């Protein structure tokens, strides 16, 4: 039998159900691996060994008493912007480097209720702002495939931890591509659900109208299991949808015969790297072989998605991050002389440079006299983008494209050029603007590095995305490739 940590979430579930493994065995195997590899990868900010072992013991007791749920005793780790009662929740920022949350986020409590064992908290770009995980106060996360490279961001810790088999399942969030881009860079599967599918309660906000919690794992099937746990209406989040939650695992095996997959021509123009195009063609070939038909569609306003995103997201962030003022929690400057001094120095010393940049951009965009030219205009573009997607999805079941322009880049390569960094999200941002579900799944390696393809579905069409990705994973081994170094 292979090592415990090589098993996927679904396989571990099977082993627990068969009683071939106990939660204590599984949990300690992952904790041991985290402790040996985290010094290299820096994927975890906090490792909660004692709490994890206690939950594992409780889980084993529940399993033997027959009071377990189907998921009791399985490991998970949470991105460090999900509040966890009694544990540091840093959001990757100095300003929250002393913040022990007094409550659990909805996603965290759902996982607890399902009986999952939390291994710890995962590194991330500060306040989820970044595409390389280099903006963390706790230092960059390394890509397990090549530790000189970035894992993507902002959920870099989640993606690297899954890729390096430090956890079989990780929570993550996606505002402009923060689940899908790191999933593509690390050879993992990642799903950003429809806006409103997963409650944002307890998820520290970056851009409230775009933020959505989701998951990173090895397979679409693993995500189907995880999404069942975290999706659903939560009365504490007014934007949480009342749409019923289907059993995503039940539709994984449906045939793709007759399904129509739209290929946005804007994603396959001359600028697309030829190796990336070839990798995408291979995936499309598999989808066609499974009975799907493909058709070209046009998303006319998709080119405007990045500029509009970089108005809306910073605008919301500039307001969302106002609460970090040194008054009630978090980092507080020494000996303030008056309130203004307290704000200026607490925030000046507590926030990193990318966060400050976005607060400034957002403050400017909302200022009197500029609101119409920037924020309002960006919202109009957002509506046009949503209309484009809905039109295309009127006759297509899914839209297909690359997740990223290239494979993982080298640490430090783009830090000096914020615009180059922002363009990392060129294929992912539009999905957030449209509020639709999007997943990134493993495509063929390019020069030994992972790539991802992206599927975008109709609102609340997560089942269709997971079904298609699972079907591809049933006939390919791209998702089984492992980083060799770790």
């Amino acid at each position, binding site marked *: 039998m292979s090592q415990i940590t090589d098993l996927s979430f679904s396989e571990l579930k099977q082993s627990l159900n068969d009683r071939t493994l106990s939660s204590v065995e599984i949990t300690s195997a992952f904790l041991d691996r985290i402790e040996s590899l985290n010094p290299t990868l820096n994927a975890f900010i906090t490792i909660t060994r004692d709490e994890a072992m206690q939950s594992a013991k409780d889980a084993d007791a529940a399993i033997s008493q027959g009071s377990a749920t189907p998921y009791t005793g399985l490991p998970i780790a949470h991105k460090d912007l999900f*509040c966890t009662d009694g544990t540091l929740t840093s959001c990757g920022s100095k300003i929250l480097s002393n913040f022990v949350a007094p409550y659990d986020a909805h996603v965290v409590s759902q996982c607890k209720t399902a009986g999952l064992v939390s291994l710890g908290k995962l590194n991330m770009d500060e306040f989820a702002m970044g595409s390389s995980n280099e903006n963390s106060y706790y230092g960059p996360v390394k890509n397990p495939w090549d530790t000189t490279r970035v894992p993507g961001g902002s959920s870099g810790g989640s993606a690297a931890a899954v890729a390096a088999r430090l956890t079989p399942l990780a929570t993550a969030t996606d505002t402009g591509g923060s689940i899908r881009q790191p999933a593509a860079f690390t050879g993992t599967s990642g799903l950003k659900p429809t806006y409103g599918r997963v409650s944002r309660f307890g998820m520290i906000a970056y851009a409230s109208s775009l933020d959505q919690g989701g998951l990173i794992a090895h397979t679409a099937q693993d995500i189907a299991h995880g999404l069942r746990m975290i999706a659903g209406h939560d009365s504490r989040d007014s934007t949480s949808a009342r749409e019923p939650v289907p059993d995503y695992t039940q539709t994984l095996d449906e045939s793709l015969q007759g399904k129509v997959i739209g290929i946005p021509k804007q994603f396959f123009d001359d600028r697309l790297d030829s190796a990336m195009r070839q990798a995408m063609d291979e995936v499309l070939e598999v989808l066609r072989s499974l009975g799907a038909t493909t058709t070209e569609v046009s998303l006319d306003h998709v080119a405007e998605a990045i500029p509009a995103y970089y108005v809306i997201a910073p605008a919301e962030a500039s307001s969302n991050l106002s609460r970090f003022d040194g008054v009630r929690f978090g980092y507080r400057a020494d000996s303030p002389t008056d309130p203004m001094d307290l704000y200026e120095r607490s925030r000046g010393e507590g926030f990193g440079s990318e966060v400050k940049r976005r607060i400034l951009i957002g403050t400017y965009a909302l200022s009197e006299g500029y609101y119409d030219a920037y924020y309002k205009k960006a919202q109009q573009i957002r509506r046009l983008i949503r209309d484009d997607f809905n039109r295309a999805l009127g006759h297509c079941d899914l839209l297909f494209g690359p997740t990223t322009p290239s494979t993982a880049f080298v640490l430090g390569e783009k830090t000096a050029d914020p615009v180059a960094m922002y363009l990392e999200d060129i294929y992912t941002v539009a999905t957030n603007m449209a509020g639709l579900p999007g997943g990134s799944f493993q495509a063929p390696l390019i020069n030994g590095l992972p790539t991802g393809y992206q599927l975008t579905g109709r609102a609340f069409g997560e089942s269709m995305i997971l079904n298609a990705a699972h079907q591809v994973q049933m006939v390919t081994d791209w998702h089984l490739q492992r980083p060799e170094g770790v």
Partner: protein
Amino acid sequence: MYEAVIGLEVHVQLSTDSKIFSGSSTNFGAEPNTQASLIDLGMPGVLPVPNAKAFEMAVKFGLAIDAEIGQESIFDRKNYFYPDLPKGYQISQFDKPIVGPGRVTISLEDGTTKTINVTRAHLEEDAGKSVHDAFDGMTGVDLNRAGTPLLEIVSEPELRSAKEAVAYLKVIHSIIRYLDISDGNMAEGSMRCDCNVSIRPKGSDTLGTRTEIKNVNSFRFVEKAINTEINRQIEILEDAGRVIQETRLYDPDKDETRSMRSKEEANDYRYFPDPDLLPVVLDEAFISTCRDALPELPEARKTRYVSEYGITDYDAGVLVADRDVADYFAEVADTSGEGKLAANWVMGSVLADLNQTGGSITDFAVTAKQLSDLIARIKDNTLNSKTAKTVFDALLASEGEVDAIIESKGLVQMTDTGAIEAIVDEVIAENPDQVANYRAAPDEKQGKMLGFFVGQVMKKSQGKANPQAVNQILSAKLSG
């Protein structure tokens, strides 16, 4: 000659049990920060959830002032930093308030009425309080009040004097009390008022530069603050100066307004729609449920009281201004069957005492039942107006019930003509000079002179003699 142009922004704390976006209690006076949840504290990750009760109250207010109700209502963020503003923004409404244009009618001193247009009313959350005197050299923050629902009611600048402004404010107060959507307690800050004041030459139709006087917290101060500010602005213009657009504070101790911040220093609030809250769409069913639940409003009640109790328009206006007073009056009038007498007693003795003590009718010492018992004893001639007042004072002092007081104080009116005659004879015998004068006087003067004898008789009877009988007997005996 100058004319004042005044518009009011009235902030009303809605009396919901819980806050507008959290489940915390809204009770006044709890220990600092004991009524502040994670949401009120603006903890990382928390989200606002609207309280439907606040919407219901706002809609009722809108219906009461005959306003358009916003079918789609949007919450915006008003961004600024302040230690008692936990999130660094206040959730308010900017473009699409829940209540659109409406109107109220105010009564002026000359007996005429005037319609004042209400621009809008919107929902927002209150901030906390900074406490400056609790810690040496430091400021404390109490977030109990943070998140309490406020309805901000904005009038058009159609008020022309401090008196009109107060009349308008009283109408708004009366409406919110009738609707029972706020306790309207200005001293506790449940109702606060910002006054926008400018002046212009009479007859001009261009507006002068306005100043805003913030947070005035009593009817009296509103009147004084506006008058003070009008005079200040007149002095400036008379001295060929220029009024600066700014925010000012009223200091009641010095009876002056002083500058708080100028327009240049004003915040850019960077309003934008709160992405944590979806647009609230009020359907017709909700609005009509609110409409069905509307109580009888002051204007309607006034009309009813005039016709039902036969009282004057003026008296009805005074009685209905406060819903609890109006209810009290109605109970007295219904129980005693004497509308006019009830109106006289409530407007005279009852309101006089309340005005003097600053007390509230709801915990007034004399119950409506007691006052109607008292009126019944006036009606059946047991009491005259003088002894009735003695009984009322005893009721105020909680000395017991009406009949027991009459009994113990021996106040039963003397109606036995024989006994009165005996006293009259005594008085005539004791005052021969006055009797002679009276008899010598011409008829038209005798009426006035009779008062002396009446007074003497009443005194001897300890106020118990029936005044009509005394008059009758005296006139007969003196002329005879």
